[in-house]
């Protein structure tokens, strides 16, 4: 990451450049740039949504338009004076935030596909434009609504627009560099994993939609005061798409890229567009296609990569920064033991997990056919069975209350029926997936931070210098050698290291019931032994209840206290390790005769 002084320094420099630049810039250039700065503020909101969080939105123009028309209607018909104008801006921001929240609420229900929000935000500008066009003389319809504007000089407007852009960019930078910003990237990378880490991703995205709607409305409000005419084209679908194109050209997920993209395209098109209106449009389209094909990350990351080869510090400012982390500054420390993990004073003999006649069907295929099971603290329940027996489905039903077709699951005395994964985490369950599921673009330590944010409130302003992990998670990190690669992007880790990382992430939630789907698959013998000893100590000293799917019978034998044999969705045997492990049953259905 870039040192803080660099950031502050560069913003001071930019501010100074903004103040001084009217000395060398002509009126026309200032006019063009002031307009571009307002657009760039809206582009920053697109970047937060799309670049960082992965929410592709064509609708930021509608929020910009809400800003434009709220202020325009207020000044045209109802109020006048500087205070009232500020009031109108505040109302515009609030209105856009409410609409943004409502759009988010419509788009981000559990299980909505990412395309859904793109469609909803595509419809939004269309609806907005129709409302404006059908407003007759009141909204100015297609001919626009002229308004009385503050009598600032052109240079003053240039400074206002530039200052607004700097402030918004600084705020956005603070957000994406904070602990909360990490969660945004985590949602983009793997939303399912986030939910299983107990994060209410829907709520995060709705809030972000509201904030970004407000930011775009602020830009629109400023713009109409500067331009003095409200036109429906500032809220339409074309403008919404242009914002996305500028963001992509500059480089999404970099903040600086969308700003440079917006300012650059607007500046050049003002210079060339007057003389060559059609050729210029063709040129922008061509540049967009070329960028998407050859520099899919956009111009700024491409330039940054080139620069970084020669000068690491300078390039570091331009390269997408959400992958980098302060190297030496992060310390992983043990967090004070929490009562949940320790389980002192709790009664170990009462079951913490109770399944009654759980069934799951995919169409006509019965994957679970009436499974009943009880598990207590301190137990390591090994679940074995041939491929396709329903083992993973069983864990999925426990981790997500909406999964079972029928039956009842009680976790820590509370029913999980109908609860999404993030609520099941709150009941005390956490699940490690079969294939490693980590946040590929984040570093190891940031993956752990995201996991930890379920237990610790996250700051939207700052990145915590240390990472406090509960003892079991810390133990897992140390034993599996992750400490030496804390700064490496998780996507570059080997398969086994990803497995270890996901285990540590899951342990950071301090669960009571731990669901592990082949935690040692892809690990070597000694890594396997290390994970085995972590798991044993979790059950013994931390009184966790562990359900473990594993094909390696030797491993199961080493760490389980109890064995459950699943076959064709039914429990065929359930008992102490010694009784079941050497039974004829295991040999016939598992080791000897494959499911032919």
């Amino acid at each position, binding site marked *: 990451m870039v040192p803080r002084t660099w950031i502050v320094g560069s913003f001071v420099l930019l501010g100074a450049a903004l103040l001084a630049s009217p000395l060398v810039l002509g009126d026309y250039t200032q006019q063009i740039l002031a307009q571009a700065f307002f657009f760039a503020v809206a582009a920053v909101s697109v970047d937060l949504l799309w670049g960082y969080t992965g929410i592709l939105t064509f609708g930021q123009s509608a929020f910009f338009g809400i800003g434009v028309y709220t202020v325009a209607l207020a000044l045209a018909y109802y109020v006048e004076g500087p205070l009232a104008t500020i009031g109108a801006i505040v109302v515009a921001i609030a209105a856009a935030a409410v609409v943004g929240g409502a759009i988010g609420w419509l788009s981000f229900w559990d299980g909505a596909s990412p395309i859904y929000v793109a469609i909803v935000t595509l419809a939004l500008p269309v609806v907005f434009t129709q409302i404006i066009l059908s407003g007759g003389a009141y909204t100015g319809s297609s001919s626009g609504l002229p308004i009385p504007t503050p009598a600032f000089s052109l240079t003053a407007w240039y400074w206002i627009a530039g200052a607004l852009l700097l402030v918004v960019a600084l705020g956005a930078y603070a957000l994406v560099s904070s602990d909360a910003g990490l969660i945004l990237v985590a949602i983009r990378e793997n939303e399912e994993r986030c939910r299983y880490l107990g994060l209410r991703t829907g709520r995060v995205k709705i809030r972000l939609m509201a904030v970004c709607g407000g930011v775009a409305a602020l830009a629109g409000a400023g713009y109409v005061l500067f331009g003095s005419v409200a036109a429906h084209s500032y809220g339409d679908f074309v403008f919404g798409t242009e914002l996305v194109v500028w963001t992509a050209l500059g480089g999404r997920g970099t903040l600086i890229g969308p700003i440079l993209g917006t300012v650059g395209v607007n500046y050049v098109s003002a210079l060339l567009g007057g003389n060559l209106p059609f050729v210029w449009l063709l040129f922008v389209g061509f540049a967009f296609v070329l960028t998407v094909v050859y520099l899919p990350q956009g111009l700024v990351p491409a330039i940054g990569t080139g620069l970084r080869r020669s000068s690491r510090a300078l390039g570091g400012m331009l390269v997408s920064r959400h992958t980098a982390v302060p190297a030496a500054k992060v310390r992983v420390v043990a967090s004070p033991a929490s009562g949940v993990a320790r389980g002192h004073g709790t009664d170990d003999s009462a079951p913490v997990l109770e399944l009654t006649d759980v069934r799951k069907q*995919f169409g006509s*295929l019965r994957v679970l056919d009436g499974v009943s099971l009880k598990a207590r603290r301190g137990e390591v329940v090994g679940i074995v*069975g*041939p*491929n*396709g*027996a*329903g*083992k*993973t*489905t069983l864990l999925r039903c426990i981790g997500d209350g909406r999964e079972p077709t029928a039956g009842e699951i009680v976790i820590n005395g509370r029913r999980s029926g109908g609860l999404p994964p993030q609520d099941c985490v709150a009941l005390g369950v956490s699940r490690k997936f*079969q*294939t490693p599921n980590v946040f590929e673009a984040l570093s190891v330590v940031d993956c752990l931070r995201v996991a930890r944010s379920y237990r610790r409130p996250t700051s939207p302003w700052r990145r915590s210098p240390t990472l406090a992990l509960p003892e079991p998670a810390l133990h897992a990190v140390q034993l599996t050698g992750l400490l030496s690669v804390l700064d*490496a992007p998780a*996507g*570059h*880790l*080997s*398969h*086994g*290291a990803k497995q270890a990382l996901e285990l540590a992430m899951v342990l950071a939630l301090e669960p009571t019931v731990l669901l592990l*789907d*082949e935690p040692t*698959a*892809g*690990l*070597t*013998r*000694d*890594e396997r032994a290390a994970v085995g000893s972590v798991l044993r100590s979790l059950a013994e000293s931390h009184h966790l209840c562990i359900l473990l799917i594993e*094909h390696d*019978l030797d491993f199961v034998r080493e760490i389980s206290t109890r064995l459950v044999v699943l076959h064709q969705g039914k429990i065929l045997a359930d008992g102490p390790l010694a009784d079941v492990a050497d039974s004829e049953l295991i040999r016939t259905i*598992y*080791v*000897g*005769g*494959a*499911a*032919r």
Partner: protein
Amino acid sequence: MTTAPSPQRRAIAVAGLEGGYGESPVLHDVSLEVETGEIFAILGKNGMGKTTLLKTVMGLLPARRGRVEFLGEDVSGWPAYRITRLGVSYVPQEKSIFQDLSVEENLRLALRDVSRFGERLDVVAEWFPILKSRHAQRAGTLSGGEQKMLLIGRALLTRPRLILVDEISEGLQPAMITRLQEVLAQERRAHGVTVVLVEQNVAFALGLADRYAVLKMGAVVESGRAGSTGARERVEQHLVL
């Protein structure tokens, strides 16, 4: 080192290969040769570059230096789709099936000439019956182990001349691993397919392979005949240290 195969008999020749992700090198000067019809195991601890090696020779990751030859062709710098047309099949470790397509559609997509599909499917379904009995099921709803069967079945369906397999035994029940061992051995007998296995399961790999190599820190540190005395001990030593 064992004796190198003669140039005509080489299915794979990798020389001085360097590569990795972005700016962090993972492979340093890897060289190895695999003979046609051979089963060759690549072993090593996690993070030593086994998967990176497969991805680099398959053209899925850029090589920084070095040369890769498959079946007598210099394929250095070729994109993956072009390499597969030589009759090379790659079975990646992380699930790469089409989740929303049916089992049969997944299998059908592997063949360029669909006219032989029925006949080939019969052969593959003999080894992995679920591929036929569940042909209409959405592939994403198969269990993890079943998806592995689909992956290897799909690769074998194309009757490749060379097949690269990344940790196929992971997540399979013991009986299925034994079956897989038989299938690969039989394919080699019947069609002379060359097999490269990347494995953590040393017993499975050495039980099946003719020769092996151990990767450590992105370089080959040990290689030899899988059946030679003490091979397993030598390999395991590298896995512990």
